[in-house]
């Protein structure tokens, strides 16, 4: 890397050059076959992903938005604001199903059997004249990773016949050592109760199912900590994953 411009390639790919630097680097690209060939190779990287069929109706939605953009330049921003606002629980439940983020098969099977009724509810609720649905509320949330933690997770909460069922699934977890466990907590006004613990599999995935028969209402937060040992009634370790949940759900 003798040419100082070649050094800017990664900034260019990262989109972090300012306007002038961008122009200069583009001029460099035209002159430097090596940088250009590296850029070309990145065009093949998407084929590392598994092929995914496009969303239903996606093409017309996107093309409409693209051509609409011409006449109403603000529409994209408006659309974004709309989508950024919190989705009602019903929508969240639907999203949870549609994208099926439950990697371990066991967790998936458990969720499906557990949610037999909830799923029927979800199916029915799509039809305006559906008969009265059973009393099942279902919410899924993506857990937010704390700084410097690389794992991801999802939680599903199901209120059914006076019980609260909780399923947490996480992946890309850092391996535990010694007696360490990942501990799940439900919190109400900052007060936690332990709701199951797990250790990651060899694939760095983990899942835990927990059912509460009493005190099922009003939880506002779900968190996962990395505890030095199993069985703590108060968290001692750092929070690695967490999310706000809807106390009304």
């Amino acid at each position, binding site marked *: *890397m003798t040419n100082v411009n*070649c*050094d800017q*390639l*990664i*900034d260019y*790919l*990262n*989109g*972090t050059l300012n306007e002038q630097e*961008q122009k200069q680097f*583009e001029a460099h*690209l*035209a002159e430097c076959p*090596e940088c*250009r*060939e*590296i*850029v*070309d*190779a*990145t*065009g*093949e*990287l*998407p*084929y*590392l*992903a*598994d*092929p*995914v*069929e*496009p*969303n239903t109706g*996606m*093409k017309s*939605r*996107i*093309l409409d*938005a*693209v*051509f609409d*953009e011409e006449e109403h330049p603000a529409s*994209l921003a408006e659309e*974004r604001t709309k989508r*950024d606002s919190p989705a009602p629980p019903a929508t969240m439940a639907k*999203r949870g199903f549609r*994208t*099926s*983020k439950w*990697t371990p098969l066991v967790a998936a099977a458990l969720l499906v059997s557990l949610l037999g009724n909830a799923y029927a509810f979800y199916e029915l609720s799509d039809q305006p004249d559906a008969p009265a649905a059973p009393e099942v509320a279902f919410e899924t949330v*993506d*857990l*937010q990773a704390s700084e*410097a933690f690389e794992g*991801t997770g*999802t939680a599903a909460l199901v209120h059914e016949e006076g019980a609260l069922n909780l399923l947490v699934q996480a*992946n*890309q977890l850092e391996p535990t050592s010694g007696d360490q466990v990942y501990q799940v907590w439900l919190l109400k006004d900052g007060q936690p109760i332990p709701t199951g613990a797990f250790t990651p599999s060899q694939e760095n995935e983990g899942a835990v199912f927990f059912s509460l028969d009493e005190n099922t209402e009003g939880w506002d937060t779900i968190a996962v900590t990395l505890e030095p040992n199993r069985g703590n009634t108060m968290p001692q370790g750092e929070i690695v994953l967490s999310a706000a949940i809807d106390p009304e759900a």
Partner: protein
Amino acid sequence: MEKISDALLYERVRGKDKDALEELYDRYEKMLFSYLCKMTGDRDLAEEALQEVFVKVWRGVGSYDESKGKFVAWLVTMSRNAAVDLIRKQKKPSVPLDEIAEVESTDSSVEETAEWQEKSEQIHQAVRHLSEEQQKMVHLFYFKGYTHETIAEKCGIPLGTVKSRIRLALKKLKTSLQMVQEGGVLDDKREL
């Protein structure tokens, strides 16, 4: 009939030819959407990112010409950066959705699948020639939605080092990909 090149289609897009944009969209919808799904772990977010890319193409933001390399590479860079921005705005951890492909029904033509398979085999083969560290750099930069700053922070490596590692990884990827594409049997022991 000879297929019109991407660059030529893009020229027409610049002249506000809607059909040309649609043709480009059709060519790269599945590839970019698959990539964006893997990166964001969210079909809705992937669609949003893809929409931003084509809005930019249509509006001529950061215009393309052949001196910047292949059109598809330019699209991939825009897609990556659109997704990185959206992930950051939503503060949404990326989740791998490997199972999507199995869950969804496929109605793709045999031809497309065959092309995908060939491309996929080539890039997978090429990536195998990267060291573990280099594969990690490519993964973090292109599939985790991390900027080079984030990689530096998370891995505790100086930014300059991260940049040169990503560059070196991509350079090696380029070389091994070229060899795979030329049909040369790649000797695993050969130093690239």
